[in-house]
């Protein structure tokens, strides 16, 4: 969450501008504060974009590259969208250079492996329905064009606001808005179609 003071994540409050100024003044250890504050969201972005077991290395490499490019970082901008852009690129390069598309089953395991929304004690039939719905949502997401998938991942899976999504994707806010609305419509249609067929 962006606040006036800076970024708050995992109980850490970081004044990004101050930290970046310290790093640029030759204090590399200050960078640790940014890494600690943004590791969770960076890992989520890497996994959401299909990094799979590579996610850890992808994120480390993204932080490393972000540090090296910190000279080009625009004063007053938010660090998180800028970092996520590097994470997404790094994921793309890694997945591509590895020359393997991960099996659909593996990706599903990554995306659906976490705690279910419905607790174990709940009706198993409801839980199964819930899982089925998530799986179909994921399939529908995979079926979107790259732009549409990215905007949905950033805005909802990573829970960025509209301005951060625009910054991360390098699009104008109007484009984020229109693509997001079209992407949601398509997802809705695909899911609806699936239900009719099912």
């Amino acid at each position, binding site marked *: 969450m962006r606040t006036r003071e800076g970024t708050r994540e*995992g109980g*850490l409050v970081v004044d990004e501008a101050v930290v970046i100024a310290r*790093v*640029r*003044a*030759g204090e*590399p*250890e*200050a*960078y*640790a*504060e940014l*890494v*600690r*504050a*943004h*590791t*969770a969201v960076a*890992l*989520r972005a890497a*996994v*959401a974009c299909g990094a799979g*077991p590579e*996610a*850890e290395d992808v*994120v*480390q490499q993204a*932080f*490393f590259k972000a*540090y*090296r*490019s*910190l*000279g*080009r*970082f625009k*004063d007053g901008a938010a660090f998180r969208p800028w970092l996520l852009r590097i994470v997404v690129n790094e994921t793309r390069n890694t997945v591509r250079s590895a020359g393997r598309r991960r099996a659909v089953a593996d990706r599903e*395991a*990554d*995306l*659906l*492996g*976490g705690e*279910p*929304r419905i607790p174990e004690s709940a009706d198993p039939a409801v839980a199964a329905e819930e899982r089925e*719905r*998530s799986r179909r*949502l994921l399939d529908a997401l995979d079926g979107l064009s790259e732009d549409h998938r990215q905007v*949905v*991942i950033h805005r*909802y*899976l990573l*829970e960025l606001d509209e301005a951060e999504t625009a910054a991360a994707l390098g699009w104008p806010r109007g484009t984020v808005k229109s693509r997001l609305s079209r992407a*949601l*419509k398509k*997802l*809705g249609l695909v*899911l*609806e179609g699936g*239900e009719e067929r099912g």
Partner: protein
Amino acid sequence: MADERLPDELRELGRRLRVPDVDGGSMAERVLAQLLAEHVPTPVPELPGPGPWRRRWGRVRAWLREKRRVLVAGLTGVLIVLVLTPPVRAAVADWFGFGGVAVRYDPEGRTAPPGGAVPGCPDPVPLAEAGRRAGFEPAIPGVLGPPDAVAVTGSAERGRAVISLCWRAGERTVRLDEFPARLDIGFAKEVRTQPEWVDLPDGAQGYWFAAPHLLTVPMTDGTGGIWTHEVRTAGPTLLWTRGGGALTFRLEGIPDREEARRTAESAG
């Protein structure tokens, strides 16, 4: 199906992503270690459209940066100790347990040829003499028996003497270095394979480096001064401390982890 439900479902999907179990602290430690190991220069803000004066200033700055880089490269062993912030250092100490050893893998293998010969003990002295010269009694692993050669290097006056014990078995040399010092805080590493913990008696733990690597051992002497014992190739190595870190051991030349552990155990 109503579209209004979708955003919430997608957020829920995002929260359920199975991400690797790495916290921000250990990621920060890894990133800093990589920055240090690769001597990445300070990122300096780039101003758009540099004029001729600024270009010249840029060159001066680049020259200064280069000078600094060279200086930093020369000081790495010490610098590692200085640059880690306390929380990161705590994470490092927690993870590594020794409080600090610099371990560098050479990715191209230029300076760390795999399976390099273990150096023997030069200028050997009698065992009894070694303890007197070094100012401390060496511990001898029972399973290896009396060493074939014993050497003392470094200055006992400043508490920086090292006793090396060597055993020869055919082509193989087993070498045990004993340092009367505690390992210093801070370390950096470029890992290709993660070193492993090895449990030793009395709750002590050792660290097993299976792959050949360059090993730097930064330490603190009796006067609080920082010194680095050596930087050189080491094959499979077991590193451990005893007496609350007052004595540090490095065993080289035993390629089997369990055998190395038993050897360490038999040193008492």
